[in-house]
Every structure is written in structure tokens, then in C-alpha cells.
């Protein structure tokens, strides 16, 4: 089946936000990262930290993960999350990198029977379990990866890559991004002719191991520390810090959204961390417990009253159109920057809470 035929069957609503202008400096940053400016940047630009987080997280900042696995994991996770935008774009990326259409189709059909090494198959299985997080992948599953040859830092990076795709999937799905032009571009004769050259530029290059970012303080420092030795640690730290420093939504609202996603994913560590942080935002233990138990409270402001119950709906969704319609309802009356920041926070919360499995003892 051709790419358009596969994606045409995927449920998807009209895009939520129009494309806007992108500040030149931000555009230059993204161009340095990607070598081009992806189509989503113009819709996400109202909240620059989301652009930076997305651009740096999905470009696989890894030093230990064997090459190629991240690209395949991105396809499998995007397909599992039914993200029409990411799935179509990643399909095009794989074709650009030289993967045959028939091979991609076999991967989509069932990666368990595609021509993969045991290590690749185990990695894709783990990436998908990270994405589903129901139940959270146990330590034994990480140990199984070690048995097929993955080092501990490579396992952590694989978890990061899966979490980064979870981030992109949620951002693209909640904003209902239109298909990436790359999908059409890949079939153009000139692009096909130049494909080997383009592929060389596109192929993610292994980076050098990096020490933990300094300082690694504030929320989720332990999750960042679990990526020690990987460039992903710095990328994640900067994404979190960017999210928390943004002036669009109050810090309290951000913590509440993280706490709800943590509760939905059974991520007790993040939930505890957010409870402690919310106490500093004048929400006591009983208030927070009440909010997390009922997703409502007279202590919430009007915007939080809409956003807090919606947060749970971003964790697992069976009907893409339903969650996109709910997003549209929630976004009514909000400014573009508020919408994009909400989406970015929910996407980041989903990624961080899933990534926290690296800290689970059992």
C-alpha cells in the first residue's frame, strides 16, 4: 500500500491553529537542528519553548543507541499512537533514508515478522510498551534488552527516543497538524534522484557522550539524571526548564497538568514531586488530593477548570477524532500561545512520566 493510501485511512480532524510567522532567530535555530524548517514550526511558534523542545527531542540526541533503531521506533510508536502527522512524516523520512516501501509496509503490518535482528525487534517492542505504558514497562523488560546486547545507557536512550516520539505524537495530534509536505516531496523525480545525498544529510549522526547538564536542578532532575552520559539529558533538561520558564501559563497550572498526567499513568514519583511543588504554589495536600481525585476544585481558576480534566484525555486515546474535538472545545477562547503551551506541557508531561520508568526499581 502506498503512503497516501495508508495515511488517508487515518482519522484526523481539521487543524486547530493557522500557520503564523516565525521569528527569524527561532527559525535559524530550527534550521541548524534539522537542516530545514519543518511545516509544524509555523503553527507552534506562539510558544517558542515548544518549538525548541520538539526540534531537539525528535532529532535523536543519542550517543549509545545503535544507529537506525530510533528511526524505526519513531514509526512504530507513531503508528501505535495513530498520529497521522508523525506517521506520515516518519514514513517519508524512512523512504528518504533508503528503506524500501515493501519493508516499511512489513514493519507497519507487524514488526514481529519483519526482517529485523533480535535486538531491533526487542527495541521496537520496548518502545511501543513505553508508549502504551499500560502497564508501565517493568525493570525486567529493560533487562531483556540487556540480554540482546543493549548497554544500560543505550536502554535509557531508547526510552528517551520513545518518550520523544510520544511528545511529538501528542503535540501533532492535539493541534491536528496537516500532513507534512515531506510526504509529497519524497516521490518527486528530482528528490528521488538526489535521495542518497539528502539521506546522508538526514541520517542522524551518533553524538558524543555528554556529562549531565549543570545545574540539573528543579523538577524531574532524577529523570534527567537517569540519562547520564547521553546528550539526551541536556536536551530534556532544557525542554523542562523552557516549559517552566515560559510566562504564558502560571507555574501552578503547569504543575497541575503534570500531576494529572502522572496520576493517569500511575507515575507516583512525578505525582509526589508535583505535590511538593504545588505546596509552594499555595495548594495544600488536601487541595491537591481533592483535585487529583476529582479533577475539579473551587480552588482552580476558570482556565484550570477546563485544562485539568482534559489532561487525563491526552494519556491514552482510542479515537483520535474524539480527543481532537475535545481539544478544540478546551481551546475555545484561549490565545494561540496558551493553546500551544497547553499542548506542549501535556506532551512533555506524557513524555517525562513515561520516561520515569528508568527510575522504577521493579
Amino acid at each position: 500500500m502506498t503512503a497516501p493510501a495508508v495515511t488517508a485511512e487515518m482519522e484526523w480532524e481539521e487543524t486547530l491553529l493557522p500557520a503564523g510567522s516565525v521569528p527569524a532567530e527561532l527559525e535559524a535555530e530550527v534550521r541548524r537542528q534539522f537542516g530545514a524548517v519543518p511545516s509544524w514550526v509555523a503553527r507552534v511558534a506562539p510558544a517558542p519553548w515548544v518549538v525548541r523542545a520538539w526540534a531537539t527531542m525528535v532529532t535523536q540526541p543519542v550517543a549509545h543507541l545503535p544507529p537506525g533503531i530510533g528511526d524505526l521506533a519513531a514509526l512504530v510508536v507513531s503508528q501505535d499512537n495513530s498520529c497521522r502527522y508523525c506517521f506520515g512524516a516518519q514514513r517519508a523520512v524512512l523512504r528518504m533514508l533508503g528503506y524500501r516501501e515493501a519493508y516499511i509496509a512489513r514493519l507497519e503490518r507487524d514488526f514481529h515478522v519483519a526482517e529485523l535482528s533480535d535486538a531491533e525487534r526487542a527495541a521496537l517492542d520496548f518502545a511501543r510498551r513505553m508508549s502504551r505504558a499500560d502497564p508501565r514497562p517493568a525493570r525486567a523488560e529493560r533487562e531483556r534488552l540487556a540480554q540482546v546486547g543493549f548497554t544500560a545507557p543505550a536502554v535509557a536512550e531508547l526510552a528517551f527516543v520513545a518518550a520523544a516520539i510520544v511528545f511529538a505524537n501528542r503535540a501533532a495530534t492535539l493541534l491536528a497538524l496537516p500532513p507534512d509536505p515531506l510526504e509529497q516531496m519524497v516521490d518527486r523525480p528530482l528528490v528521488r534522484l538526489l535521495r542518497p545525498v539528502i539521506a546522508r544529510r538526514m541520517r542522524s549522526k551518533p553524538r558524543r557522550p555528554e556529562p549531565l547538564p549543570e545545574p540539573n536542578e528543579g523538577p524531574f532532575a532524577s529523570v534527567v539524571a537517569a540519562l547520564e552520559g547521553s546528550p539526551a539529558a541536556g536536551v530534556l533538561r532544557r525542554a523542562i526548564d523552557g516549559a517552566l520558564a515560559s510566562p504564558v501559563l502560571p507555574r501552578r497550572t503547569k504543575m497541575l497538568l503534570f500531576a494529572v498526567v502522572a496520576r493517569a499513568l500511575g507515575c507516583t514519583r512525578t505525582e509526589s514531586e508535583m505535590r511538593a511543588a504545588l505546596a509552594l504554589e499555595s495548594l495544600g495536600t488536601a487541595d491537591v488530593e481533592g483535585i487529583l481525585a476529582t479533577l475539579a476544585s473551587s480552588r482552580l481558576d476558570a482556565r484550570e477548570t477546563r485544562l485539568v480534566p482534559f489532561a487525563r484525555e491526552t494519556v491514552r486515546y482510542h479515537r483520535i477524532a474524539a480527543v481532537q474535538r475535545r481539544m478544540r472545545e478546551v481551546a475555545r477562547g484561549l490565545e494561540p500561545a496558551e493553546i500551544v503551551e497547553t499542548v506542549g506541557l501535556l506532551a512533555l508531561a506524557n513524555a517525562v512520566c513515561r520516561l520515569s520508568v528508568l527510575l522504577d526499581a521493579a
Partner: protein
Amino acid sequence: MAWAAVVALLAALGVHAWRTRRTVGALERRLATARRELEALQQAFERFAPAEVVEHVIAEGVSARSEKKEITVLFADLQGFTELGEGLAPADLVTILNGYFERMSRAIVEHRGYVSKFLGDGILALFGALDANPWQTNDAIHAALAMRRTLADYNATLAAAGRPALAMGVGVHRGPVVAGLIGSEGLMEYDVIGRTVNVASRVERLTRTHGVDILVTEATRAALDGRFRLRPMPPVAVKGIADALPTFAVEGFDGGATAP
């Protein structure tokens, strides 16, 4: 002569290549169709069992894999429907019953419940069975209240058509169950078993004793949002439970019209 043989050979090879290509094309199209059907089937199955169970069945076939989980069980039953049915033509009876099931199922699904089965005129619905759901009990009671409102609307429709009104009892209990693929080789379904299901059924029957439409157990009440208005009912001895069972009638929700 040799040239003619070469040309003939090339022509034959060309025809063979063309036929092979056509066959491969046809096979690819059939494969693509089969894949679409399989995906549609998989998506459909995921409405009846957790994705992980569906995947396990596809990869390894049906097996006795099961797990213990805490869920909220909602049991609904029509009161006096058997007697009501005796005065109706079979076609009318089925139409009324199907209209009821259709509406109640929608109310349950809209609140993240899963309709496990219809038992005569009863409905067994599960919350937190397919996906982990920390808000499962609130969702179940929001569903029960939506069922109450939906039944009132349906009764108005039935009355306008000169048909008798329906009365419903709903029992809700939260507790552990064993979930898995249960049945015989010929008929298997994702189901839950355990005392929790029996208690929900017993509680539903108590709605007749107490003259209310929605009753919940203490375990359900303990997990509920405090904004649900509950009225304690006197404990009643029920079959299979040692102590008299305290229950609570659900009167309403004070948190606004929309459920989270």
C-alpha cells in the same frame, strides 16, 4: 536463425516478466486489502479487550492468560420488564429493549465504560477494565446518572408513542476481579470473574428493596468524589455475603452538568 531464436527468447522473457509483474501487483493489492481488513478487525477487537490482550491473541493465539485488577462494576437491570413484556407484541418488546440498550450503552461508553454483556434485560458494564483508569469509580457513577437522565428522556419518547414506561435499577461495586479470555474453544470473550461482579448484581437487586434507582457499596463510596450526593440505606442481608450489606443511594452530583 540465431537472431530469431534470441528475439523469440527475449520476447518470451518479456512476456514472462510482464506476467510476473502483473501477478506480483495483484498479490500486493490483495495483501494491502487483507492488511486493511486485519487492522480494522484489530481496532474493532480493541473495543472488546485491552490492546495488549488483542495483540497477544494475534501473535500467539488464544490462551488462558489472565490478570487480577481492581475495577468498578456497574450492573443495570430493568424492573418488571418480564411482566411488561407479557402485554406487548414480541416485535414491540424487542424494539423497546433495543432502544433501551442503545441509549444506555452510549451513556456508559461516553463515560469511559465498557459494556461487557447484555444479560436478558440486564447490562454488565466495566470501568477500568480495558485501560488503567484512576477515576474509574467517578466515571461509573457519572455513567449511572447519565443513564438515569437518558431513561427519563426515553420514557418520554415511549409515552408519546403510547408505550409503557421503563424502570431501571443500577448497582455499582468496586473491587478486585480476574480478567482474561474466558469461555470454550467455540465461544470465548474478554470477561471478568470474581465476587465483585456478584456483589454489583446483588446491590442492583437491592434497589427494589430500598425503592431507589442507583445504589452503591461502601467500597464504591470510599473512592467517590465528595460532590456526589449519597443517602445511606439500612444494611440488608444478601445471599453470599456474611454481614448485612450497607449501601448508599445516589441522588445527584453537585459539581455541574458536565462530568470530567
